[in-house]
């Protein structure tokens, strides 16, 4: 039996999309398992964990991101249809939305303007680079939308995606503290605030920690925020003279 050289085998495998696709799925499954073993803490989200492990792995085997992405793009591509699919939870909760439309819209607008203005304001004051600034701007929107927006306004999509993920875990960690401080116990309000400020992470957290009502309102806030931010952000960045 002939056995191929190990380094030749590696040359073949590392040039094949199969390896990075498989690595992404296996690492994600492992990250979910680790997170569960640690009691589902919001501080060590499976996504953050997967990204850290995959970056470590790529550095270890000395693989370029572009090579990795050739395989991983098949997963990445699904973000588009997943964004479209956000219309389904929005449609499911249309009655509740219609009833609360006024307050929700006002709260959503206030939240978005606060998010964008404080982000740009603080980052400008701290002297961040322009590319960082424009990638930070859409940070409270769910990733697929944020990446599209970042691309539109001149930020870096992959940097924006990473910052969105960081925002999500920070939002989930801060939220219980804010709710206690403001003495808010209404699950609808809690869920909406979580979905607005921490998008998908917040929605998962709302479902898991507060309940179904909070989860529904969180999903709604996530969709609404994504939609409104996509319209508002190009205008707001122009206001700051950034694009």
């Amino acid at each position, binding site marked *: 039996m002939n056995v191929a050289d190990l380094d030749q085998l590696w040359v073949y495998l590392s040039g094949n999309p199969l390896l990075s696709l498989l690595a992404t799925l296996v690492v994600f499954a492992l990250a979910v398992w680790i997170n569960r073993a640690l009691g589902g803490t919001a501080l060590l989200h499976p996504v953050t964990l997967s990204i850290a492990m995959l*970056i470590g792995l790529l550095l270890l085997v000395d693989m370029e991101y572009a090579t990795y992405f050739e395989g991983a793009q098949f997963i990445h591509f699904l973000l588009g249809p997943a*964004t479209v699919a956000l219309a389904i939870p929005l449609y499911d909760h249309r009655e509740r939305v219609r009833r609360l439309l006024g307050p929700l819209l006002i709260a959503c607008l206030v939240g978005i303007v606060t998010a964008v203005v404080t982000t740009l304001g603080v980052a400008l004051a701290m002297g961040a680079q322009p590319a960082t600034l424009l990638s930070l701007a859409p940070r409270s929107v769910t990733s697929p939308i944020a990446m599209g927006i970042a691309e539109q306004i001149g930020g870096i999509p992959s940097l924006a995606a990473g910052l969105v993920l960081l925002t999500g875990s920070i939002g989930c960690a801060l939220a219980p503290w804010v709710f206690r401080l403001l003495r808010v116990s209404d699950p609808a309000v809690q869920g909406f605030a979580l979905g607005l400020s921490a998008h998908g992470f917040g929605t998962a957290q709302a479902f898991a920690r507060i309940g179904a009502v909070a989860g529904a309102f969180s999903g709604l806030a996530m969709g609404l925020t994504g939609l409104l931010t996509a319209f508002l952000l190009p205008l707001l960045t122009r206001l700051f003279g950034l694009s």
Partner: protein
Amino acid sequence: MPLIMGMSILLACQFLGELLARGLTLPIPGPVIGMVILLAGLMIRGKVPDSLRLTGEGLLRYLTLLFVPAGVGLMVHFRLIGMDVWAILVTLVVSTALTLVATVWVLDRLNRRRGRGRA
């Protein structure tokens, strides 16, 4: 077949969205417009087709996984992040806290006022 039907609906909406975004040079990502198109379609039809629900909810259940490939792209930006690491961290924490406070405060007040008006 339901997966194929559902996926076709989602991709068709995204395609229309991309077409509109590029064609009219709108500052909105194509998939977002696709989401609005799908929402309008569902409103008109009055229900979510089973095939669409199966595919859509399946995708949304694993939404977090879909962020991973782009997130790994952070490694390309280590230099930029290194330059701005404090700006980024302070901005994220301060701004996220303020966003939470503002949203909760406004929604809670509006909600309470509405509740009183009805009572």
